[in-house]
Structure formats: structure tokens, C-alpha cells
């Protein structure tokens, strides 16, 4: 080994997000400007950072997950990157599909797609992919 780094994933690449959706069997709806949610803010949870009540339901793109009524909204930040906006009210069906309020299923899929894209660009190819018992995905990438 040479060094080990830990990274908190941030969504900033739409192409990687599209790949992640495809891998999960979800529909990336480019240019959709609204996402389905409960429809009314009841104040039981904090708003996403930088969002106002009137921003809820609006987005730049959306993700439709089969089996869920609600959708994930993707909104570009002025400083770069994207916010993922979604309603985790259980009847909407998203919280179960995304693995919880933190949307770990979506974050994992995005991180994998993004890591592969960036390393392929630098001449690496995947030689192994393992799924560990705790849900960790391990990729071994070797330089060509």
C-alpha cells in the first residue's frame, strides 16, 4: 500500500448520475423541472441547506424510481454541484427504494459510476468487483 484516503461523496457529475440511474434501473428525466412529492411543507423536518419552501418541488432534472410515487429532484447549485431533493414520507415509496433518509443506494451507485469514469480516464481498467456482506462494493482497478 502507499496511501489510503477517505472521501465524502458529493454529486457533481450528471453523466455519472445518469450511469448510476441506468445501473439501478431508474429513469433519469433530463430537463424535468418539477418532481413529485407530498406537495405541502408541514415543517416536521429541516429544509435542505440553501433551500426555501417555495423551492420545494422544483428542479432542473429528476429521477423516477420504479415502484415509487415520489421522484428525486436534481437541482444545480450556483457554486457548482447538485442537490438531491426528495420527500422521504414513507407512502411516497422513495425512502425504501433509496435505502433510508440519506439515500445510500443512490449515493453508492453514483460513487461507483463516478470512480470508474475518473479512473478509466486515467488509464485504469477494472479487474475485479466484489460485494461485501455489509454492502461495501470493492473495485480493483489496474493501470493498463
Amino acid at each position, binding site marked *: 500500500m502507499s496511501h489510503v*484516503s*477517505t472521501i465524502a461523496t458529493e454529486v457533481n457529475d450528471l453523466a455519472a448520475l445518469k450511469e448510476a440511474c441506468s445501473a439501478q434501473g431508474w429513469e433519469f428525466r433530463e430537463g424535468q423541472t418539477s418532481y413529485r412529492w407530498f406537495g405541502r411543507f408541514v415543517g416536521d423536518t429541516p429544509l435542505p441547506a440553501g433551500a426555501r419552501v417555495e423551492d420545494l418541488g422544483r428542479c432542473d432534472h429528476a429521477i423516477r424510481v420504479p415502484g415509487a410515487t415520489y421522484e428525486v429532484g436534481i437541482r444545480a447549485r450556483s457554486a457548482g454541484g447538485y442537490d438531491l431533493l426528495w420527500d422521504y414520507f414513507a407512502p411516497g415509496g422513495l425512502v425504501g427504494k433509496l435505502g433510508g433518509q440519506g439515500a445510500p443506494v443512490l449515493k453508492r451507485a453514483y460513487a461507483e459510476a463516478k470512480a470508474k469514469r*475518473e479512473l478509466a480516464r486515467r488509464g485504469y481498467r477494472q479487474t475485479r468487483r466484489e460485494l461485501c456482506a455489509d454492502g461495501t462494493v470493492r473495485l480493483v482497478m489496474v493501470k493498463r
Partner: protein
Amino acid sequence: MTKEIVVEIGPEGDVRFETRGFRGAECEAETRDVERALGRVTRTQRTREYGQRPEQKREVKA
């Protein structure tokens, strides 16, 4: 020595990079841009091989 990068995507979506077969600071140079492209680096730990000098090519005249 084969240069490998092991990428572990944790259950919550955080990512851990482990470089193998690199020497010296070349491992960090190799992955720096990739790590930043993925998100915010929260921890970096250097290993024994980090202190070794990178392989240098020597030209030998016959």
C-alpha cells in the same frame, strides 16, 4: 510492480481509496484529482511505501 487502486464504496456512499504498488508521493499525485472529483477528502493515511523513492530509470551504456 503493478500499480493498483482499490476503491471501496461503503454502505452509506462514502469512498475509500487504497493505492498499491506506488512509491513515494506518486500515489497521492495519481489519485489527487480523482479524489477531489468524487467529493471532500476527510482523511488521508500514508503507508510504509510512501517513504520509498519512486523508481528511476537509469540509462546504461554498453
